[in-house]
């Protein structure tokens, strides 16, 4: 990928994120016709991201307990994502941090947590 494509993708990603945040701040997915999870509609099982929309709305209204109730994985992810994004931007300044965060151990841990959470929530109906 060229530098320009990368930059475009990064910027559009950030713009999309901000738009999503604004959208979820103003609408409550619980009472509006917001899309439900495709996976849930098709299979009847929740996916690891189910509840993120409602959690995001709650979070943007400072209802942390409510947000945790909807999707704790989202709450845990936010500080981690912030750290990842920081290390990505400061890659050349904090090379060690970047390499540590993008090391195999960290990514596998993320993967295992996601899968474990996926199984757990379907068994215990979180």
């Amino acid at each position, binding site marked *: 990928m060229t530098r320009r494509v990368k930059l475009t993708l990064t910027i559009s990603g950030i713009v999309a994120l901000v738009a999503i945040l604004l959208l979820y701040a103003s609408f409550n997915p619980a009472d509006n016709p917001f*899309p439900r999870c495709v996976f849930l509609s098709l299979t009847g099982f929740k996916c690891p*991201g189910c509840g993120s929309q409602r959690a995001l709305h709650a979070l943007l209204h400072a209802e942390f307990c409510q947000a945790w109730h909807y999707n704790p994985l989202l709450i845990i992810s936010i500080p981690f994502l912030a750290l990842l994004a920081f290390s990505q931007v400061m890659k050349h300044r904090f090379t060690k941090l970047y390499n540590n965060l993008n090391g195999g151990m960290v990514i596998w841990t993320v*993967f295992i947590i996601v899968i474990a959470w996926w199984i757990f929530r379907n068994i215990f109906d979180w």
Partner: protein
Amino acid sequence: MENNNTRYWAIVNGVRLGPMGLEELARLSLSPETPVWHPGLPDWCAASTIPELRAYMDANIPPVPPMPPVPPVSSYFSTQVSQTPYIPEVPRQQQPMPPTYLVWSIITMLLCCVPTGIVAIVYSSKVNSRFTSGDYEGAKKASENAAIWILATVVLGLIALPFQIIMALV
């Protein structure tokens, strides 16, 4: 005791060095002919003629053995983002690790309502494992695959959006 306090001067390579103690003088690589002087001598004398210095020069100190080649410090991190700018023998280490896109993998997994984001996380982890094992091409491929799965997740989420809204309205 008097000797210990004596200050010495020497002329090494045409440069006058001193004042210094006997120990310090002996540490210079003096040849027997090196001119040395200390208070009490009428003039510069060859190092070999000064008795207290002879003791040092006679001591048969073995020469410094040739150092074994020091292996390059193999830092775990230097194999990832290359911190050494130019190593001609190992071109792979010049290449920085391809991006893992872990941030976007997690975000799409959480927000796009499609669980394919998990596949992107698997590819993110492959980027690192392949890169550390030396498979640069494989790492690049995994990085591209991660990006493709992230985009696929976003696109799938967008395609599903209208259907989901209709279903929610009905």
